[in-house]
């Protein structure tokens, strides 16, 4: 299998956008892609993979995020409306503003995936501030239920990053 390039994904997105299809699921070696025109939709199997996948959802990014002037008004004041979450799930929050990384280095496996059991002192992600990386701990024992932030996204202080169902 040849490597999937950004252009390939963009081509797929274009086809999908122009099609009457509501959902598309693609699974090739090393990549799993789920596209949907329904905001907040989630694929049926191994949810952690496409949540972790940096490929953009066409429903949220109609074009590649190349125009920062647009991105600022889009990203600024609209908050995504999360699905109802069981009360006892605990959010792991950002200790400060920074860039969120799910894995210790580019290309490496993420610290945690959905469904994984964690201890209070399990590292769950990194927050980078000007090349200074700080690891964030789960803070609670339980199972990872949701990853709320895309890899290498800017997160703000106190922003929920993961949801954990306590053991």
């Amino acid at each position, binding site marked *: 299998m040849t490597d999937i390039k950004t252009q390939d994904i963009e081509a797929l997105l274009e086809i999908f956008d122009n099609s009457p299809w509501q959902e598309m699921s693609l699974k090739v070696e090393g990549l799993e892609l789920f596209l949907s025109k329904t905001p907040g939709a989630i694929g049926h199997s191994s949810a952690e993979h496409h949540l972790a996948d940096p490929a953009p959802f066409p429903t949220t990014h109609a074009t590649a995020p190349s125009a*920062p*002037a647009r*991105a*600022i*008004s889009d*990203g*600024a*004041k609209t908050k995504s409306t999360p699905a109802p979450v069981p009360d006892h799930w605990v959010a792991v929050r950002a200790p*400060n*503003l*920074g*860039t969120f990384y799910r894995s210790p280095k580019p290309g490496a496996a993420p610290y945690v995936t959905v469904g994984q059991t964690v201890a209070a002192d399990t590292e769950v992600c990194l927050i*980078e*501030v*000007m090349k*200074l990386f700080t690891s964030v701990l789960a803070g609670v024992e339980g199972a990872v239920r949701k990853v709320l932030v895309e890899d290498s996204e*800017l997160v*703000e*202080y*106190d*922003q929920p990053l993961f949801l954990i169902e306590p053991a």
Partner: protein
Amino acid sequence: MALRRILVANRGEIALRIVRAARGLGIETVLAASAADHDSLAAREADRAVVIGPSAARDSYLNARLIVHAATATGCDGLHPGYGFLSERQSLAALCDEAGVVFVGPTRDSIKAVGDKLSARRLARAAGIAMTSGSEKLATAAEAVAFAEGIGFPVVTKASAGGGGRGMVVARDPRALADGFQRASIEAKEAFGDGTLYIERYVEHARHVEVQVLGLGDGRVLHFGERDCSLQRRYQKMVEEAPAAALPETTRNRLHKAAVDLLAAIRYRNAGTVEFLYDVERDDFYFLEVNARIQVEHPVSEMITGVDLVRLQLRIAGGEPLRIQQQDIAPSGHAIEARIIAENPDRGFAPSPGRIRVWRPPHGEGIRLDTAMEEGADVPPFYDSMIAKLIVHAHDRSAAVERLRAALESFVVEGISTNIPFLRAIAAHPDFIGNRVDTRWLESVFLPQYGQPKDP
């Protein structure tokens, strides 16, 4: 290249002021807010607000790395530091350079050259500017006493690393100096992380005057007239005016030239203020320090010159060649600013944070209010308690004083205590009306009378 999007690294009225100035120039803004300020007026008016850290300034507004990271991650090409917080820290300017973000302010070398007071005094001396006799750094109280006996008492100790009254002790004899030296050094160390002191001859009847400048970065430095900020409590300014009406015209011109010469020598860039002590009896002035940032009281200079200094800051930082020349800047009339502070003058000026229930500021001709407050807004307890700046402008000083009195009279704030009643009493005092004040007047004349029953 003009700036496209800037990060505003401050809060309160100055953050809002910068957001609006940027908008006027078509520059987008990202406000870096603490958790306490996530819903502030500045946060709402900015194109985007990001919460960088918790409410404590140490973990938010004073964390330079967080702020510069926020700037790069949100695609900003410039950063305005406002005043206070990190505005005069070399480290912030250096991190901006490192990240390729334009710092809206002087170069880091200039900040360093003028930021250390002893280094600034050397610059002033080289530019031929008078200053009070003063020492280099002094290691011990004994050294200080020996130096003071050479120049004569009274003397004042000063911290090399900063201002704001920290590390300042006025001593009238050797014993007081020996006692005060250690205390001043500890205070300076706590405030600035550096306990280095020097001493200067203390001028008994002095006015605080300062010149507003803008350096174009190519050796040209424009000035926007001077201000008189003699009304101070514990070295904190409370009322500021422009021009300094007490100065004879020839002295005024020499003062402007001194400020321009000092900063032209280092090809100073962007806004700055050169502060002087004016010795009323000798009709002479002495260099105090340079503030390498926009200052709280900049609006009084704007009111008399008709320019927007914050916009000019952004245009200079964007590399725009300014056509404005010194002869275009023609001050007219008189402006006075009163700082509205959430504090209770009847209880030792204790800060008075809380929710503003009623907010009815004055309006009308010649009245400007710089604030980020509104009815229902919270004054958080974590930061400086200044909540507004009331600025009036009129054709001359007595008309401006009258306008200030009327404006203060109609200013209604409920829910928190403010210094408005205190300011009203100042504005009605014959010494203030007659412009017979000096830097000690507020504490030595006005305060002892304030709240005392009037003689029948």
